[in-house]
């Protein structure tokens, strides 16, 4: 008997009732979020020490390069950016920037578009795809994220896509941190040390 058959033989039982599984999710306990002030709630969570992100606001995509230049200059970084091949980003005027679409091991800054922001936790939701590589978002020192205000949702239950899943669906709720040495918190353990969110109003 194969290992699979041997294990499953010991676990024989009735098939799960979908209604029973669904009933376990009725009215879940979770932090309250005021849907009338989603943006403010999201920004408040983003500023918590546990998330530790800065933010900026732009009125349109045309303002995005200027906002990023402002951030990088404030951080003392050159105008060098890892830019994913997303047509919404490549269409912007990046004059003055040095761009590349593959992240170097010591990449300074990367830009990515979050599909959603979650007010409950200040999380940013991403999915992999041909125009959305994953690795640069974990390699760079500065993780810069563009998020449309209309994509802010109240709870984590709003994060998943319905239907077929992408290869990777991931939530970013802060920077790479560790408390592994004497409990002292250190930012940038392996990945980004800084998280900067640019809200797009239009």
């Amino acid at each position: 008997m194969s290992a699979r058959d041997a294990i499953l033989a010991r676990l024989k039982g009735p098939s799960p009732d979908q209604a029973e599984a669904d009933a376990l999710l009725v009215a879940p306990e979770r932090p309250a979020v005021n849907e009338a002030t989603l943006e403010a709630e999201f920004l408040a969570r983003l500023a918590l020490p546990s998330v530790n992100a800065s933010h900026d606001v732009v009125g349109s995509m045309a303002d995005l390069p200027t906002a990023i230049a402002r951030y990088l200059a404030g951080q003392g970084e050159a105008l060098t950016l890892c830019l994913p091949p997303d047509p919404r980003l490549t269409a912007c005027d990046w004059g003055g920037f040095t761009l590349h679409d593959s992240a170097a091991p010591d990449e300074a800054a990367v830009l990515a578009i979050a599909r959603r922001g979650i007010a409950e936790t200040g999380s940013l939701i991403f999915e992999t795809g041909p125009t959305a590589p994953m690795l640069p978002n974990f390699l760079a020192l500065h993780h810069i994220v563009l998020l449309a205000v209309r994509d802010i949702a109240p709870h984590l239950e709003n994060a998943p896509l319905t239907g077929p899943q992408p290869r990777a669906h991931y939530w970013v709720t802060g920077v790479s941190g560790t408390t592994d040495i004497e409990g002292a918190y250190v930012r940038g353990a392996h990945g980004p040390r800084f998280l900067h969110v640019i809200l797009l109003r239009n």
Partner: protein
Amino acid sequence: MSGFTDRAEAALADPILKIAVERTAGTAEAKRGIAIDAFPDFEAARSRAAAIKDHVIAHLGAYLEQFEANAIAAGAKVHWARTADEACAIVIAICKAEGAKSVARSKSMLGEEIGLPHALAEAGIGRVETDLAEHIIQLADERPSHIIWPAMHKTRDQVSALFKAKHRSPHQEETIAAMAESARRELRTQMLNADVGMSGANFLIADSGAVCTVTNEGNAELSLVPPRVHIVTAGIEKIVPSMPHAIHMLRMLARSATGAALTQYTTFYTGPKRAGDRDGPDAMHIVLVDNGRTKMREEGLAEMLRCIRCGACMNHCVVFRQIGGHAYGGTYPGPMGAVLTPVLDGLAPNRDLIHACTLNGKCQEVCPVRIPLPTLLKGWRDKSWREGLEPTSMRAGLGLWAWIATRPSLYRPVTTIAMRVMRLLGKKGWIASLPLAGGWTRHRDMPRPAAQTFMTQYKKARRP
């Protein structure tokens, strides 16, 4: 003297260990308390989490088959292992078939449980642990002492010495930030150049075939995206029906483990790289491991399969906070470890471990999935007694006590005499040394008994 007793005595005599354990566990306890106070109705949330896990355990076979079908449909290969040896053999065979020389591994307690580090070493496959604490432990050639903070027993001076001895470009400043930066430099190229990325799973999502991992360091993603192969080893109890079920468990896990609302990085991996994807592994293998779990389900330990490995039980355990994790001897320390270790390593060699508990119930109070840990430990004690594993002296002593205690006319004079003798041994209210009970008085004094027995006082009080 048994292994556990020796280890516990050594741990108690180590003043640095006590400080290190207390610092991390105490902070975790405080942060959890703040997070739970801020959460609406955490008690109801605990009940829901327990109900989700019980539902899964009741239908475990069906959910595993559903997960398998969906993972395969997403392009992953699913393997099944009855034992730790089978699981390691599968992993090593995959590595050899892929010609893998190096493995980047994200922290996985299941990997520790099945002895994967040892199996990789035996197979001649290089392994780099990428969680900072696991990296420290690997350099020190030690075992984790906590399931969330594996290197909690190490001081900054010890870590500094390790990094200076083993890193190619170690830190120059004696700060924790500089040490972490040294590890960042050391590990980054190894993660990017590894042939295989290995992880456990915090949750397996049945209706999508996704594998969920959580980290605060982001080392899982850096370990699992660049290599050409991703191998997951996961206990079969990690299944949840859907992502919304996982979301409830994630809310419980982060708050119970570190007091955070959520870990910094939460990722759901569904199969290998897709057409057009710019990164990700070419192959994904998922090894579903039993290693005693079906037996636990059959033999009265099903509630233990609810465990989501948050570590809250050990952070709140008065025993763990005195002796740390290594004294427990097994893969899993603390109260959950005391219940699991006899399953994994046998009851006979762990007979004294199951007695290392005051049964104060704190672990059960903080468990996010309401595991009745004291009851399960008492079950092990009962089994140990029934199987004749308790020492002859204890069996004889308890037998004598039971014989006398069931004869009140004998019990009362005997206890009166015993009390008088004990009072003669006591000074200033305490007995420093008690014949036939040296184990009790070696490390602490026993209160001097009252002048009269309870029954004598009771009878006196009843007289008009």
